[in-house]
């Protein structure tokens, strides 16, 4: 038998049948951000929900201006404002059940407050008396995350653990447009999809990562298009339309709770203020763009819808304003009090049980502070 004959006995066959692991079509986002306010869909929205959203938006805006004011008074080390993004912040909080978990980034203090955490405790990180002020378990809110996108795998792990335990808990994780470029974003979404973890990823695309505009961040058709690469649905929504954000997130949360797995939601919005009070936005963007977005203000959008439909009147507006003022006054007053500081606390929670090393260092600091106290007392004594 010749070589060719030998080979002829072998008939290569087609590859084992290939099929897409999932149908990509339903995963792709709509061609335009989904909107409710000012569209026909608004008619189907629950009036009560719209009113609750409105009250929270007004509070949220006031919270933002108050916190920014506190930076000027030196009461906060830094504040990244979510002015203009209140619809996302508020909807993210309101869409969750009590048993669900929220994973905020540093910009999302408003979502944390809207979820019910004490605003003063929420601002602890940014005031600088400790790294985190609230008990994460009390309200099921993870600490505000500063390293970008690192909170996303946490949300996935928590949601996965809840599912393993048989609890129908959903985790909602927030991240910025810039944060989507980090490897952690990728790894988190992939784990979530493979594990079918009940988690919702909310990307607030506010146009900028500090000074870097979206065009330098990604070439994707939209950030929501990233979803298909993980095998999860991507949704695109007008991030200034509170009703739309609430609806899209609500769908995603229900989907996740029902065992349908994760969703990626991109909310298109805009950061009206500078990155933080320490930033100078005039270095990288013009007024015209800001003004165009001011004209699409999330509060005004909802206000118009509500008034047009007769769901809000002047006293209603006034009541919301009043409520927000009270919140602000309370916040102002409490933030104007000096926080209680205990330097010894530096050693208390490094480990479950302190080490011999840390005991030594604790003693050193204690002795220093006592000596300082003595010197101060002596000086005061001298002065007296």
């Amino acid at each position, binding site marked *: 038998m010749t070589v060719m004959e030998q080979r002829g006995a072998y008939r290569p066959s087609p590859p084992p049948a290939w099929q897409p692991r999932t149908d990509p079509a339903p995963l792709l986002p709509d061609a335009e951000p989904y909107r409710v306010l000012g569209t026909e869909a608004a008619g189907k929205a629950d009036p009560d929900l719209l009113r609750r959203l409105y009250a929270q938006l007004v509070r949220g805006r006031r919270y933002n201006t108050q916190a920014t004011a506190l930076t000027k008074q030196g009461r906060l080390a830094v504040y990244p404002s979510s002015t203009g993004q209140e619809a996302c912040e508020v909807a993210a909080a309101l869409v969750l059940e009590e048993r669900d978990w929220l994973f905020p980034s540093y910009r999302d203090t408003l979502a944390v407050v809207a979820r019910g955490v004490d605003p003063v405790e929420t601002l602890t990180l940014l005031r600088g008396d*400790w*790294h*985190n002020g609230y*008990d*994460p*378990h009390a309200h099921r809110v*993870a*600490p505000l995350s500063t*390293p970008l996108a*690192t909170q*996303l*795998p*946490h*949300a*996935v*792990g*928590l*949601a*996965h*653990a*809840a599912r*393993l*335990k048989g609890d129908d808990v959903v*985790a909602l994780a927030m991240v910025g447009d810039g944060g989507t470029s980090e*490897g*952690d974003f*990728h*790894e*988190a979404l*992939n*784990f979530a999809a*493979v594990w079918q973890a009940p988690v919702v990823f909310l990307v607030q695309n506010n146009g900028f990562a500090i000074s870097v505009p979206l065009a330098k961040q990604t070439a994707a058709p939209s950030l929501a298009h990233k979803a298909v690469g993980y095998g999860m649905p991507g949704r695109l929504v007008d991030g200034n339309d509170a009703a739309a954000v609430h609806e899209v997130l609500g769908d995603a949360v229900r989907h996740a709770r029902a065992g349908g797995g994760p969703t990626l939601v991109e909310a298109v919005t805009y950061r009206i203020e500078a990155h933080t009070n320490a930033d100078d936005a005039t270095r990288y963007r013009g007024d015209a763009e800001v003004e165009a977005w001011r004209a699409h203000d999330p509060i005004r959008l909802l206000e118009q819808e509500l008034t047009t439909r007769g769901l809000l009147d002047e006293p209603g507006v006034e009541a919301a304003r009043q409520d927000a003022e009270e919140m602000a006054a309370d916040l102002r007053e409490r933030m104007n009090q000096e926080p209680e500081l205990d330097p010894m*606390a530096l050693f*208390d*929670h*490094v*480990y*479950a049980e302190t*080490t*011999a*090393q840390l005991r030594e260092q604790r003693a050193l600091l204690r002795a220093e502070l006592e000596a300082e106290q003595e010197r101060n007392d002596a000086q005061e004594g001298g002065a007296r």
Partner: protein
Amino acid sequence: MTTVAVKPATMAQALTRAMRDAMAADPTVHVLGEDVGTLGGVFRVTDGLAKEFGEDRCTDTPLAEAGILGTAVGMAMYGLRPVVEMQFDAFAYPAFEQLISHVSRMRNRTRGRMPLPITVRVPYGGGIGGVEHHSDSSEAYYMATPGLHVVTPATVADAYGLLREAIASDDPVVFLEPKRLYWSKDTWDPEHPADVEPIGRAVVRRTGRDATLITYGPSVPVCLEAAEAAQAEGWDLEVVDLRSLVPFDDETVCAAVRRTGRAVVVHEATGFGGPGGEIAARITERCFHHLEAPVLRVAGFDIPYPPPMLERHHLPGVDRILDAVARLQWEAEG
């Protein structure tokens, strides 16, 4: 410490048994990592766990170390006790940010409200003929990170006992497994884990009068061998196995050094910026007037880990240890 001899087992088997027993005792213990499930890990240390406890308890993850550790953080937040396997030392580096910025700090950040009882198992060190990136000794990175415990067994009994303790700890523990001791065998009684000293205690593996070798993990057997060889040269060497780099057992170490007045720290990690500097410095701070000579270090050279065919020149061996002992200024003594 009494170790009841029962039957010989390898260190790898003791580690497997530790996870198995921990999983059986506590349903919140979950193992996750690359290839830990069906395959049982590339070193077979998780062998059988997926079969016994199911894939939800011992899970093959996607291939992404930051994702593995990051999701473990979330699992721990929800009350689980994740045991994470990093496939090799150098492949833990992608998870560095999660480890430093979150795992080590979450308890402190939340004033104790959100502890993270995570065990990060890292096969480490050389001597197995591994190609590049498979033989790093990365303990200096972990030691420099407050909030982590850093533990490494050198005996089969310790492998079991320390891993059980690490998993039971309410703090994150970086558990460094000396690769080249995986197949070392010893008799050991899994029924008496309590016979093992707790995390945070060093153990004197050999008493001696002339000088103290301070070491851990893969270098413990090497130091014991060196101590035997030293007899021939007339030196009676003490050998301390640190077991736990964090917390560090100053008491046991300093007592051993004070007894002999001379000390050499031995490890595979590079010398410069390696664990030995810290160890030598703290011994000197505490035992200065007991020292007849400076504390010396025998460590890996200050070079990237060598290729397999050259690694023997890099690793601290008996001769290099004895040379260091010889440099402990014996003449000045009399």
